[in-house]
C-alpha cells in the first residue's frame, strides 16, 4: 500500500516534469507533418549551425580527453603537494554558471584584453569567433573525462604497468599497450559524456559567440534565435534533433556503464 502510493507519487512527478515535456517536443515538432520538419532541419542555416556545433565540440572533446588522461594518471598514480587542490580545481567548472564562463573568457581573451589583444593584433579573433567558443566548451566539459577514468585507474592499480616494465617496456610502451586498453571502456564513457555536454552547451557559448547568424551560431544558439524570430518550426526541428542526440547519448551511456564496472 505504502509502496504503491510512493510509486504513484514518484511517477506522477516524473510524468509532469520529465515525460510530458519530452512527448511535447515530438508532438510540436511534427504538428505540421514530417515535410516542414525536414525542410526546417535541412535549411542551410540549420545545417551550418550543425557544422559549427561540430567544429566546436570535436576539438573540445579531443583536448579534454588528452588533458583528462594526463591529469587522471597524475592524480591517481602520483603523490604531490597540492594534489587535493588540483582535484578540487578540476571540479570547479561544474560550479560555475555558463554565463560567468562566457564573461570570464571575454575578460581575458576579448579584443581589448591582455591575451586576446595579443592575438587580435595578429588578426586572430578569439571571442566572437570559433576559437573562443571552443575554449568555452572546453571549460564546461573539463572534469568529465578525468572523473570517468580516475576511479577505474585507481581500481586496476599499477601492477600491470610494473609487469610490463619488468618485461622491458618503456613507460610510453606500457602506457600505450597496457594502461589505455585497460581503461578503454571508462575512457569511452567519459568521451561520450563530454561530447554530449559539448554538443548541448548553450549559455557559455551564447555569451562568447556574439551569435552572428551563419558564422558563430551553434545548433543550440540556432534554437533560441529561431524561436525569438517566431520561427517555431525551425526551433522545434533543431530541438528535436538535439533531443534525439541526447537520447542516443543516454543509450550509449547505459551500454558503457556496466562495462566499466566489470574490469
Amino acid at each position, binding site marked *: 500500500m505504502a509502496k504503491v502510493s510512493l510509486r504513484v507519487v514518484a511517477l506522477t512527478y516524473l510524468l509532469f516534469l520529465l515525460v510530458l515535456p519530452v512527448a511535447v517536443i515530438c508532438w510540436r515538432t511534427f504538428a505540421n507533418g514530417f515535410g516542414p520538419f525536414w525542410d526546417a532541419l535541412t535549411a542551410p542555416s540549420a545545417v551550418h549551425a550543425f557544422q559549427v556545433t561540430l567544429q566546436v565540440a570535436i576539438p573540445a572533446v579531443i583536448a579534454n580527453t588528452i588533458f583528462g588522461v594526463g591529469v587522471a594518471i597524475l592524480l591517481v598514480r602520483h603523490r604531490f603537494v597540492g594534489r587535493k587542490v588540483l582535484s578540487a580545481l578540476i571540479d570547479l567548472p561544474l560550479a560555475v554558471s555558463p554565463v560567468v564562463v562566457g564573461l570570464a573568457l571575454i575578460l581575458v581573451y576579448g579584443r581589448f584584453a591582455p591575451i586576446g589583444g595579443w592575438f587580435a593584433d595578429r588578426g586572430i579573433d578569439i571571442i566572437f569567433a570559433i576559437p573562443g567558443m571552443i575554449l568555452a566548451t572546453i571549460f564546461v566539459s573539463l572534469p568529465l573525462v578525468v572523473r570517468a577514468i580516475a576511479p577505474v585507474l585507481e581500481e586496476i592499480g599499477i*601492477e600491470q604497468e610494473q*609487469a610490463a616494465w619488468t*618485461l*622491458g617496456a618503456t613507460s610510453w610502451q606500457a602506457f600505450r599497450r597496457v594502461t589505455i586498453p585497460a581503461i578503454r571502456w571508462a575512457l569511452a564513457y567519459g568521451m561520450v559524456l563530454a561530447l554530449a555536454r559539448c554538443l548541448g552547451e548553450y549559455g557559455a557559448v551564447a555569451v562568447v559567440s556574439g551569435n552572428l547568424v551563419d558564422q558563430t551560431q551553434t545548433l543550440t544558439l540556432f534554437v533560441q534565435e529561431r524561436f525569438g524570430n517566431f520561427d517555431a518550426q525551425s526551433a522545434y526541428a533543431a530541438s528535436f534533433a538535439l533531443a534525439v542526440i541526447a537520447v542516443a547519448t543516454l543509450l550509449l551511456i547505459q551500454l558503457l556503464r556496466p562495462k566499466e564496472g566489470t574490469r
Partner: protein
Amino acid sequence: MIRASHVCKNFGDFAALTDVSVDIPTGSLTALLGPSGGGKSTLLRIIAGLETPDSGTIEIAGADSTRMSPQNRNVGFVFQHYAAFKHMTVASNVGFGLKIRKRSKTEITKRVNELLELVHLEQFAQRYPAQLSGGQRQRMALARALAVEPQVLLLDEPFGALDAQVRKELRAWLRRLHDDVHVTTVFVTHDQEEAMEVADSIVVMADGKIQQVGTPDELYERPASDFVMSFLGPVTTLGGRLVRPHDLVLSAEPVDGAVAAVVERVVRLGFEVRVDATVGGQPIWAQVTRYRSQLLDLRPGDTVFVRVLEPAASPVG
C-alpha cells in the same frame, strides 16, 4: 649473482629495510622468508628495480644495478595477484616481452608455444586471463616472465592468492621447473613450510633486517635465535629455553636430567601424539610416536618425566 650491500629503505617513518646485505648464488632457488612487514617484498622489489633504495647497492651478475630502471635489468617478476594483462590473450601475454623486443612473429610464436607447453597451458593460448583459474593465471605469469630469458626470476608471494591444494601443487611444480630451467630464482613467502619444501637456501628476514641465512636443515637444526627457531618450526619451553616438541623424551620413571610434569591432555594427531603438560605451572607440549604413547599409557593427571634429547645423544645421529 645478486649482491645486496647495506641496503636501507624507509617509507616515511617506517624503516622497511635497515642495513641489509646478502648474496644470492647463481642458479640457486632462494626463499626470502619472514613475517608480514618484515621487509622481504621491499627487498625483492628493490632487486627488480620497482623501488629504489635510500642507500646501499644492488649488483646483478657483477653489474651495479642500483639505479637501473626495471626495463634494463632483465629480471622476470611474478606478482602475487598475477598482474595479467586482462585485455590480451594468454598467448599475447606470454609473448609481450618478445614483442617489445621486436622479435619476428615466427620467433615469438615458437617461443610462446614452447613456454605454454612448459607450463601446460597449451590449450588455453587463445583464452583470456579472466577465463583461467588462479593457478593457471600464475603459471601464465611465470611463462610470461621466462619468455625473455631473464637472468633472474623474482616471485613476490606467488602462491599467496591461491587455495591450499593449488598452492601445494604449484610449489612442487616450481621446484621441478627450477631444476629444469636453472634460472637464479628468488621468491618471497611468509609460509615456512613452503620455504623449507622448495628452497635451496633461505634468508630469514624480520623487522627490516636479516636474521639468518642458510639451508633449510641448517636453519631448522641450528637456528641462530629464538625468533628463527620459533618461526621455522614448532617450539615449546622447558627450563627457560626453547626446544622442539619432538626432541622431548617422556618416561614414566624419573631419569637423570628429567623434570616432573603433570599431563593435561593427550591428543592423537595422525600418526603422532601430542601430550600437553605443565611443569611447575608452565605449559609445555611434547610430540611422541603412537608407539611410545601406547607404551606410556598416559592419562590426564599422571606424572611423567621430561627431558630434552640432545642431538649428540640422538641414537639416529
